[in-house]
């Protein structure tokens, strides 16, 4: 009897974790594999299990709309990550100056994060609409020639998605960096002061370079936000004008749920997964390797 209990004692963690492990195996990895397989078939309205090779990928990469979506992802993803980091870091440094009412200001900056992207998108749609928002207000102040029509211009509409995204997510980056800066050893800062380093110099050359881990987490979180971006685009531009602000996620939705092109949608999903992997895998690899050494 005691032997069984002992055995059970050792096995209980494994038994407890088994159901969720099995569920993850089936519902995450199982369906990834299923999607991969569907992307190699002629599936349209219903899944069809006839192997067709890479035809769906060929169709995908000759579709001008998909190329626009990829281009937009590069523009949006790049600018979104860059500006979120810039704004977040600057805000974190400013807040680090032990100002009054820091708690209140921090909350205010972090609050957009509490909104869903749908709300953010809808609010910015009105703010950026030339007939309702900024353009109209400034014109009504007497600047008749003021123009800010990014939202309705196919060439610039993607930048409005960046604006709304940065507004929403930079508070989160600020929180990450503020925590990192606060965790920094004050002795070193004091020592640098003694050596006559300026405040700018301390931040740029000492504190920020030591926050490599924070940078990595921020970039990984922002990158996957960018790649799976869907609701923000739907609420802000609806993918328009035309399909000028289409992203891979909205493309996939359109194909799968509006056009009965399951195979093509699956192919685009696989490409999205590979894009995410291209970012996450090197990150995980470097993290895991470090742990192995430590």
């Amino acid at each position, binding site marked *: 009897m005691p032997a069984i209990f002992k055995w059970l004692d050792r096995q209980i963690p494994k038994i407890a974790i088994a159901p969720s492990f099995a569920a993850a195996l089936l519902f995450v990895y199982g369906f990834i594999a299923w999607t991969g397989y569907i992307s190699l078939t002629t599936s*349209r309205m*219903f899944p069809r299990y006839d192997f067709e090779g890479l035809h769906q990928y060929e169709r995908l990469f000759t579709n001008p*709309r998909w190329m626009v979506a990829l281009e937009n992802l590069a523009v949006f993803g790049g600018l979104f990550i860059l500006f979120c980091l810039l704004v977040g870091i600057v805000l974190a440094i400013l807040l680090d100056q032990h100002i009054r009412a820091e708690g209140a200001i921090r909350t205010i900056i972090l609050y957009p994060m509490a909104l869903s992207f749908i709300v953010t998108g809808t609010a910015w749609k009105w703010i950026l609409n*030339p007939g309702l928002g900024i353009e109209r207000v400034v014109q009504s102040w007497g600047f008749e020639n003021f123009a800010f029509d990014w939202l309705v211009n196919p060439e610039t509409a993607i930048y409005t998605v960046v604006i709304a995204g940065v507004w929403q997510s930079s508070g989160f980056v600020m929180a990450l960096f503020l925590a990192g800066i606060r965790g920094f050893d004050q002795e070193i800062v004091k020592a640098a002061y003694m050596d006559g380093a300026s405040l700018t110099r301390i931040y740029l050359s000492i504190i920020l370079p030591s926050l490599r881990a924070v940078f990595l987490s921020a970039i990984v979180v922002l990158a996957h936000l960018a790649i799976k971006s869907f609701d923000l685009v739907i609420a802000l531009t609806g993918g*328009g004008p035309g*399909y000028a602000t289409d992203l891979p996620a909205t493309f996939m939705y359109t194909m799968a*749920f*509006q056009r009965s092109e399951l195979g093509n949608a699956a192919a685009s999903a696989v490409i999205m997964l590979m894009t995410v992997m291209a970012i996450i895998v090197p990150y995980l690899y470097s993290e895991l390797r470090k742990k192995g050494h430590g």
Partner: protein
Amino acid sequence: MSYRKILSTAVAAGALLLAAQAHAEPQVEVLHWWTSGGEAKAVKALKEEFEANGGTWVDSPIAGGGGDAAMTALRARAMAGNPPTAAQVKGPSIQEWAEEGLLGDLTGVAKAEDWAKVLPPLLQDVMKYKGRYVAVPVNIHRVDWIWANPAVLAKVGVTAVPKTWAEFNRVADKLKAAGITPLAHGGQPWQDATVFEVALLGVGGADFYQKTMVDLDDAALRSATMVKVFDQMRKLRGYVDPNFPGRDWNLATAMVMNGEAAFQIMGDWAKGEFLAAGKVPGKDFLCAPAPGGSYLLNTDSFIMFDVKGKDALAGQRLMAKLILAPKFQETFNLYKGSIPARLGMDMSKFDVCAQRSSSDLVATIKAGTLRPSMAHKMAVPDRVVGAITDVVTAHFNSDLSSRAAATRLADSVAAAK
């Protein structure tokens, strides 16, 4: 597969039990996305009619995404082997559902109710799969309407809606010179596609429409006529106001209503907006068929699934019969703003626009110029509609040349076919 088998066995067993009882009680579960305003009222009328005839109606409304959410739910249920009795599906999608072997057979009701006589031939083809009826049409919407504000037109001395695109362009130029937005339009892909098919009909005529939007003939899609169609689209692009991207269609209708714009090209659901605002057709607003002398038809319909059990089958038969009965056709379509799918009805209770739609329908059937709407998924499968819409909206929102647009259109259609 196994699920479906188990379920169907269970249902069949249930049917056997029920068969012991003397007669079936008609029962339907109807999946639809008519959840707002006049549509909700219209579907409620059907429910009441059904219940008044001794049936049990289980309502499964699924709102959102213009039917996308409903389609996704329907697909999931069909794959799990648990489809509803009837579902709102239209156009060539009916054929796709039938090809999966999921649909039942309404031929009995069709014969008894003489659908061959009362339905337009074009509609009969859409509702039939391999000669048997699998769906029942509820209404007919006309897509190729031009809505106009006569007070605005009067400002430039125009009294009637233009009859050709050349005339339309002349009037629009005059309006523009007078500082009035000629065309109220919402820059959403389906609205761009709606305007496109109407322009195509006017520029190319009914035969060209058949070749390009129904038969998807490659040579016709690349032809000089198609280039002219895109030229007209470019013209129309010049007639909309700068804030058009993303605008909903009913806001565009409001622009015509309020005199901010002169015309809107939209199906007859736009009429509901005018009527709801208390406007009188012929006086406060004008409705006129767009150039082309044809008729672009859009129809809502219900597909009937292959269900087991006396009750469900009786429910399907009763529902199909009631939907095309004259009384219901009148009530429903008065609510919905469309016209009856049944021919030869008394139209005296309908407004002048609906009466015009009805008489034009009969005339175009006779002339052989009645055509299914591409933009509203009546002519070709959804994936082809999507491919065409992509090109149309890309052209409308960029400075792509008409020649290049025609080439891209033909290439995209070939890739989607």
